[in-house]
């Protein structure tokens, strides 16, 4: 997965409060042969600070090709808030957002797509299914085109 125009490798921003989940996700993405850099954040505040930069405009990331892997249940804010802010930010709105969460509530799924989420995946409890889903996602990552940064 890379951005062809800038030739800069895509970085995966992983917002996941559970370190176990983060580890399992990373393991399985790697198993799919995806070697892009993964930036893990265990809470919403840190992730928002990184994405929107010190000035809070998101301009600091406009030159970087990014992909966001977002959990909805965070200790300090909901992933939905982050999704809303990213998708309504001038510089960040084209970043593909993959919501990866335990919630399979239909209303929640609808809301995320309404807000501009690109992919919504429910974490299966069964590990075989989980590992399979993440590996599939990894394969998906290896083929999707991430829009070039401005």
């Amino acid at each position, binding site marked *: 997965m890379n951005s062809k125009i800038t030739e800069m490798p895509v970085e995966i921003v992983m917002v996941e409060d*559970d370190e*176990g*989940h983060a580890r*399992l996700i990373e*393991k399985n993405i790697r198993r799919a042969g995806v070697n892009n850099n993964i930036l893990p954040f265990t809470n919403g505040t840190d992730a928002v600070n990184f994405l929107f930069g010190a000035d809070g405009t998101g301009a600091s990331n406009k030159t970087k090709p990014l992909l966001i892997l977002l959990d909805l*249940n965070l200790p300090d804010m909901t992933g939905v808030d982050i999704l809303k802010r990213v998708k309504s930010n001038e510089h960040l709105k084209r970043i593909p957002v993959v919501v990866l969460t*335990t*919630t399979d*509530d239909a209303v929640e799924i609808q809301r995320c797509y309404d807000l501009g989420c690109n992919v919504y995946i429910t*974490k299966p*409890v*069964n*590990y*075989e299914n*989980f*590992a399979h889903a993440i590996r599939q996602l990894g394969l998906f990552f290896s083929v999707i085109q991430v829009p070039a940064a401005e």
Partner: protein
Amino acid sequence: MSETRRSRVPLQPILLGVGFFMLVVISAATVWLVKQSSTDAALVAHTLGVQDKLSNLLLDLRRAESGQRGYLFTNEPAYLDDYRAAIPDAWLMLRQLQEVTSDNPERTAELQRIAGLMGDKIAEMDRSIELNATGNREAARALVLGGSGRDLMNGMRDLTERAIRDEGRLLGLRTTTSQNNNLRLLFITLAGAVLIVLIGAASIFLVQRSRRESEQARRTVEATNANLQQIVEYRTADLTEANEEIQRFAYIVSHDLRSPLVNIMGFTGELESLRQDIFDEMQKLVAEMARLNALSPNETETVEKLGKDFDEAIRFIKTSIANMDRLINAVLKLSREGRRQFNPETIDMGAMLTTISETVAHRATELGATIAVDQLPPVESDRLAVQQVFANLIDNALKYGRAGEATQITVSGRTAGSKVLYDVRDNGRGIDPRDHQRVFELFRRSGPQDRPGEGIGLAHVRALVRRLGGTMTLSSELGKGSTFTVTLPRRWSVENRSAA
């Protein structure tokens, strides 16, 4: 407040009683006094009559005397006629007087004396007339001149005049009494009137006060009512909030419990693949040692035993996780059902039950079971919820049939007031009476645990029925069958949903 009220209650009738009593007294007094005053008037008239008659008596005697004198003086017999006419008049008058004054002994005595004098006088006059008539004119003149007749006349006049004066005194007395009585009557009437006015005023005051009090009480009751209503509203709101809180809590708990479960499951999976790697490695080592003939026979066994223990441990962990996942999912499902908005619509229950039987027709045929749906009254409720309720009940009836007996399921219904009742009856294995409550509890089951299931169905059904504003009852005998009765309001609305 109750103290004063208790003391006030009898005041009104007492006042009324007093007023009535006063009226009776005034009326009686008035009647008595009016009668008295008529008696007084009669007495006055009587007195005046007596006076009149006394005067007449005197007048008649004077008439007789003047007739006698005229005759003696002129010898004209016409005067004698006057005399003769006056004498019976005088006697008549005297008799009348004696009659009307018979009640007065003093007057009777006086009249007796007057009568005596009258007799003497008339005798004297008769004698003088007789003497004159026989020609003895001188003797008659001498008799008159003798003055005895004049004395008699004067004595009689004095007596009569005294009687007239005495009657006048009686008249004055009686008039005064009559006036006094009249004054008394006036006073009593006025006093009574004043008292009645006072009682009336007091009554009006009391009525006004009790009206004010009842108005006050009414307002208090109204305020209390409003307050009660508010309290009920608050409590209902509290209850609804608490229920929502429980739903949210159940949702959050079950949801958040899944997260660590993913880790446990995940790293158990990782352990499994690690075990594969480790044992592969050990297998290689064992093979290497066997090649070097350094292998003791127990070594292979130990490795195999370790592998089995490892697998057993992993298997238990995985089964437990799968169980826990099922339970969490069940809680999640229930909490989600509890949060779903209901859309009431009129449901053709017969059609719905037929659809449900068709859905399970394949299974029913395999089991040799029959499902009969009677005429069912329609209900206005949430279609999905009602469908889930009956699908669960039919499913249970199919699931818990009796060995060696073809399952027969009957669904019947009836209307009772604002409720509709549906019975789902089967001839299955039945439920022990001790478990009649328990089967409705979450994760609780009854009888031999030889059928798959988590103990969620009936808990879910009861929660749904309660939310639909209805109730669930069960009558069942072990080995005979069960009847689940679902009672629903004919029309579901947000108001009649139960707080449960």
